[in-house]
């Protein structure tokens, strides 16, 4: 009997009991939908990291004071006071390939504007930072070199800080805020940037000249970090190596001793995060894969029940001329149709859910053709694999016994 005929018979059989067919499919639908959504979330997260690298510039290098262990004592980043302004000047002047440079210090404190207040990060930085981070302004202007050299009390707000101090629609340029009880004039607002590759919210901070932060807000003379943009991507690693060598000399570090600073390129940081995301994606996909497996087992169970319930029907088919092979094929096709149709619906569900998460919760998702293809393939294989045992059982029934079955 032709495969087409078998197909027809299988479809008719499935159609006869729509409720059972649908319930059987449910496991496959949920399993495939879950896998597609999890993988899309993972890929979306990776994609957004890559986008951030592109938008921040792959040439970025960050030098932070402090390293994990200095002199046998664990210090952590930024805890050391060994990084200084002269270090930054030296890097700018003696290393070729340094395009932009900004020294940085940071602290967290309460900021007051009128009758609103907000606890946020105060980032002391330099005029190059919008260029290094490819960060356009939403309104107003950034600091000038005079602001930095004179430790002027001027501030540029990140979009979240602005929202919490002045409301989402106000333009605070020209207004005064108080940081540690000192008045600062708002001269600009940065555009929204979202999360940095390092994980902090770049919009929830207030930028001031680093000299102002050092002298007027923090009472320190050292700096926490230096942000650099290399002139071109291929030079980035070489520039980073040069910085390490220069600082080791300046800080008089003996060969064999660890650095008292950390130099990292954005790519390294991003790849660390990327690895973490990949691990998480694999884990999520594995969990979702388990639900796919359960879906397959569900299909097998229902097919077994179906075979038992349809014993008389199978006996009849055998009696009127079906061969064992015909019955095997029929039940196998039924299982495969359930799993493939369930798989297709699951794919639709997964794609829809991914799009919904992106538009509703702003979670990045990226649905790939590979994932869809793989999910479809798995669904088909699951159908064949888990459908085979019940189909073989059906085909092996003795027609006489089957016809007598109550």
């Amino acid at each position, binding site marked *: *009997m*032709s495969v087409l005929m078998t197909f027809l*018979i299988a479809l008719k059989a499935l159609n006869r009991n729509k409720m059972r067919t649908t319930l059987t499919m449910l496991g496959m639908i949920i399993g495939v939908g879950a896998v597609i959504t999890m993988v899309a979330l993972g890929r979306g997260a990776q994609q957004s990291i890559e986008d951030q690298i592109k938008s921040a510039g792959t040439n970025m290098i960050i030098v932070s004071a402090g390293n994990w262990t200095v002199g046998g004592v664990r210090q952590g980043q930024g805890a050391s006071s060994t990084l200084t302004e002269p270090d930054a000047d030296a890097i700018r002047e003696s290393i070729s390939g340094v395009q932009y440079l900004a020294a940085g210090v940071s602290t967290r404190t309460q900021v007051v504007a009128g009758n609103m207040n907000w606890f946020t990060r105060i980032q002391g930085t330099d005029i190059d930072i919008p260029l290094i981070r490819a960060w356009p302004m939403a309104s107003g202007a950034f600091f000038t070199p005079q602001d930095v050299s004179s430790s002027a009390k001027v501030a540029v707000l990140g979009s979240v800080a602005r929202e919490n101090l002045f409301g989402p629609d106000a333009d605070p340029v020209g207004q005064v805020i108080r940081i540690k009880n000192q008045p600062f004039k708002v001269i600009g607002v940065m555009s929204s940037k979202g999360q940095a590759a390092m994980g902090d919210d770049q919009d929830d901070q207030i930028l001031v000249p680093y000299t102002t932060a050092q002298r007027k807000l923090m009472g320190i003379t050292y700096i926490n970090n230096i942000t650099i943009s290399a002139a071109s991507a291929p030079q980035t690693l070489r520039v980073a190596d040069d910085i390490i060598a220069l600082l080791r000399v300046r800080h008089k570090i003996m060969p064999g001793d660890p650095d008292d600073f950390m130099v990292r390129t954005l790519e390294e940081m991003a790849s660390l995060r990327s690895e973490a995301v990949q691990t998480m994606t694999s884990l999520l996909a594995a969990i979702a894969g388990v639900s796919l497996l359960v879906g397959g087992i569900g299909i097998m169970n229902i097919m077994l029940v179906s075979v038992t319930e349809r014993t008389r029907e199978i006996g009849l*088919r055998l009696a009127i*001329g*079906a061969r*064992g092979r015909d019955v095997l094929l029929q039940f196998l096709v039924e299982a495969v149709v359930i799993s493939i149709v369930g798989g297709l619906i699951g794919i639709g569900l997964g794609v829809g859910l991914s799009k919904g998460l992106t538009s509703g919760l702003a979670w990045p998702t990226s649905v790939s053709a590979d994932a869809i293809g793989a999910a479809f393939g798995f669904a088909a294989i699951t159908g064949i694999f888990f459908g085979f045992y019940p189909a073989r059982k059906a085909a092996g029934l003795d027609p006489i016994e089957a016809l007598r079955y109550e």
Partner: protein
Amino acid sequence: MPPVISVQDLTKTYVVGEVEVRALRGVSMDVQPGEFVAVTGPSGSGKSTFMHIIGCLDRPTGGTYILDGRDVSKLSKDELALVRNRKIGFVFQGFNLLSRTSALDNVELPLLYQGHAMRKAERHTRAMKALSAVGLNERAHHHPNQLSGGQQQRVAIARALINEPPIILADEPTGNLDTRTSIEVMGIFQRLNQEQGLTILVITHELDIAEYGTRIIGFRDGRIVSDKPVARRRHAEEELAALPAMALDD
């Protein structure tokens, strides 16, 4: 004219655990085309085993069985399936129709297994023809749960006829039917037997049903113990006409 069924020294032995059960102990008989044979006997007499072998659902342990000129005693399972499809029309006590399926699709079923594809239009035509032969063409699209017991059995008979087989095998065809419907069904068998020359074998333990046939064979202990023509044959159509008129749903 050669017999349509010819068995010679048929034996069938089952092994159940450690015990050998000799269900058939040497059965020989012929059935000529156009006969209407009733097969009777108590349970355990071997009549069911005999019918299973005649119906090619089982193979004999020994002896030969020639069906419509072909020795089918040693065919493979697949070959037997094709023989069942082409040569035998089954009618069962429990009707065995597919639920949630129209009468038309039920009748068509054997056509799906007959070895080569047949176009839907042709299947449709043949199924309608078979349903007309049993008087049910107006209910072609009804499902079994919309049909009475008698109507369901008639659909089953139409299904048995669809491939125009030489013999019809009926296993207690009236077992689930009331008296009047039983007579109607036996009437259909008689009509098919007389008008189309169809050979019919009916297993039954009810002697009054057996009397609609032309010949009664009695089994006991795995052997045929009696084989004689029916003395006073009953005629279903006459009996139906004589019954008091009842509301019919035909």
